[in-house]
């Protein structure tokens, strides 16, 4: 395998909370704890998890919108923390982000022409004429009529707005696009259009996607690889079809079982996941309190990341799938900082 385009190496993001401990010390919380992942050129990796699992923070770290507290983010071999500001600025043209809600991510007072040309202006690309030509070309690519240029976001539908956001992200010919819940704010009938558009663009431009989603069915459809996050850690990762058809982590299984099927004949039996208590014990597995098969070890030792087979790993003491190699990998995250 060639070098990955994007690599996150033991990334931790720690936030200061407003809470104070009993002794008056500042309390920190880890939004992302020790996350490592790789994304190759032209591939799609999906980050899946519930709200608060750290998937969006991880995505923001990947495009340098947030700095990791520790760990490294490598884009095409460049450590984003070590390169200078000017270099980072140049590099930023190669990775772009599409947000969930195009209504709030697009400036409502700007016209579509200016919205899409804005990244070109910032990166001093071409002149007014060539930028306009580029905007027209981008509108064609995302399937919007050229007459859209004079419109403002509020004159567009949700799907059209998301197309504008995608055109904006594509403007500088990026290699990586981070899509944070790109369709969850859209109507069901429009979602498929946008997903198909993203997949067409990926093929045409050999784009890499880091997709953040809470919808496993959607991920199953769009991503080759998936990383399941729970409370800031990746609990399982691997090729999408394998992870979904035979989940190794109990949390992944709970997620798969919870996906509602539109076929009434396929409705899964009533829940196996415990919804509470909400707070995990500090030392052991973060999922132990909700896990139906947690045993003694789970509560006091953090599970090592076990590689089940090439490219597929799980962080669980008692994985549901036996691996070909059960020896722990050299890295043992979650050692409880």
């Amino acid at each position, binding site marked *: 395998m060639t070098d990955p385009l994007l690599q996150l190496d033991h990334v931790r993001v720690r936030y200061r909370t407003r809470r104070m401990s009993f002794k008056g010390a500042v309390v920190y919380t880890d939004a992302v704890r020790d996350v490592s992942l790789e994304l190759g050129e032209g591939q799609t990796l999906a980050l899946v998890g519930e709200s608060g699992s750290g998937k969006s923070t991880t995505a923001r770290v990947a495009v340098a919108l947030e700095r990791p507290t520790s760990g490294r983010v490598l884009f095409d071999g460049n450590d984003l923390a070590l390169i200078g500001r000017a270099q980072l600025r140049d590099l930023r043209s190669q990775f772009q982000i599409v947000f969930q809600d195009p209504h709030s991510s697009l400036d409502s007072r700007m016209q579509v022409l200016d919205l899409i040309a804005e990244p070109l202006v910032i990166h001093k690309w071409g002149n007014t004429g060539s930028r306009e030509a580029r905007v027209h070309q981008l509108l064609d690519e995302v399937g919007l009529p050229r007459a859209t240029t004079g419109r403002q976001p509020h004159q567009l539908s949700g799907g*059209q707005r998301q197309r504008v956001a995608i055109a904006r992200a594509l403007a500088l010919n990026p290699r990586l696009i981070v899509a944070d819940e790109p369709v969850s704010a859209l109507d*069901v*009938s429009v979602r498929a259009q946008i997903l198909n558009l993203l997949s067409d663009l990926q093929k045409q431009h050999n784009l890499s996607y880091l997709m953040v989603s809470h919808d496993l069915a959607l991920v199953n459809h769009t991503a080759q690889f998936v990383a399941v996050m729970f409370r800031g850690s990746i609990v399982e990762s691997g090729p999408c079809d394998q992870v979904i058809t035979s989940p190794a982590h109990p949390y992944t299984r709970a997620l798969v079982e919870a996906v509602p099927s*539109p076929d009434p004949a396929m*409705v899964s039996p009533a829940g196996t996941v415990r*919804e509470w208590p909400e707070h995990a014990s500090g030392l052991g597995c973060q999922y132990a309190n909700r896990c139906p098969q947690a045993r003694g070890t789970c509560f006091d030792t953090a599970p090592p990341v076990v590689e089940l087979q090439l490219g597929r790993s799980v962080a669980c003491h008692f994985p549901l799938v036996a691996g070909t190699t059960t020896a722990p990998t050299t890295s043992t995250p979650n050692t409880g900082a």
Partner: protein
Amino acid sequence: MSPLDEMKSVPDVSSPETEGVLELRSLRVTDSHPAGARRLVDDVSLRVGQGEILGIVGESGCGKSMTAMAIMGLLPKGCAITSGSILLGGRNISALQPSEYNRIRGKEIGMVFQDPMSSLDPTQRVGLQVADSLRVHTDTKSRAARVRVVETLESVGLPEPAKVADSYPHQLSGGMRQRVMVAMAILCGPRLLICDEPTTALDVTVQKQVLDLLRGIRDSFGTSIVLITHDFGVMARVADRVAVMYAGQLVEEAPMGDFYRSRAHPYSDALLRAVPTLHGTRSARLWAIPGTPPTPAAHREGCGFADRCVNVRADCLNAVPALAKGPSPHHRLRCLHPVEPADGASTSSTEQGVGQ
């Protein structure tokens, strides 16, 4: 065709022995748009039987939430019921005064909304808020009310209900808050529960539990439920019968299983195919519906879906199709050129094909 004529042509879908708890008769809700009153809900007739869960599916602007608001007497300013009626247990409630509606809402009709955090008062303990409807509708003394609240909190599956009653909303998780909302809605033992996107703000694992809770409430109290959602997966998990709305109108209605197997409206079919499932082939393209959902209009010449429809013919543009009998028993359909039921069930796109 006048609404009255259409009523006659529509077969009675609920079995005759079940007394309809809720009945909508040619309901029309319009707003006061400067360019002319637009029909937000256009000629909707529905019936919900005792202990039945009716799901109303549709996209934004299709009129599903407006229908719910009309039933609860909570239409926003400027919107009004301009024709048709709403019958609750045989009594017409569509023309009630606000003060009279207050006596029904919370007592005979319970409500659960999408976002529990914005429906709860952040400054008040949960138990007090839940007890509100008891204080309004009955003369229960506060000590008895407290007992009743704790019991109800327990019945919706909350652990340590007494502790929950003493908590503030922010101390509870999203799933727990939504359970509190459900407890509040069922406290006075309503016959009808209206749930408007009750799980949209929740994580999937929690969503499943809240949906199972709603079904449990129906099973143990015989409550009739109207569930409004945009998600067919949610629908399949709880609804007995499904009604699809588009552009303010009811376009198809059938028992859940029949609907999935023999849906006939091109919109229902396309919508179901457009939903990615866990059993699909990953590389296959999703079935996309071209265009965007329509905005409310004052008047429609033809079928509201015509401009996005794959089966559209010339006659679709001339007149709004009537709601007529569909391909299976208890099935109603508003379409001149429906999709073939056989095609809809077996040879549909990859994702449905495997899901059979």
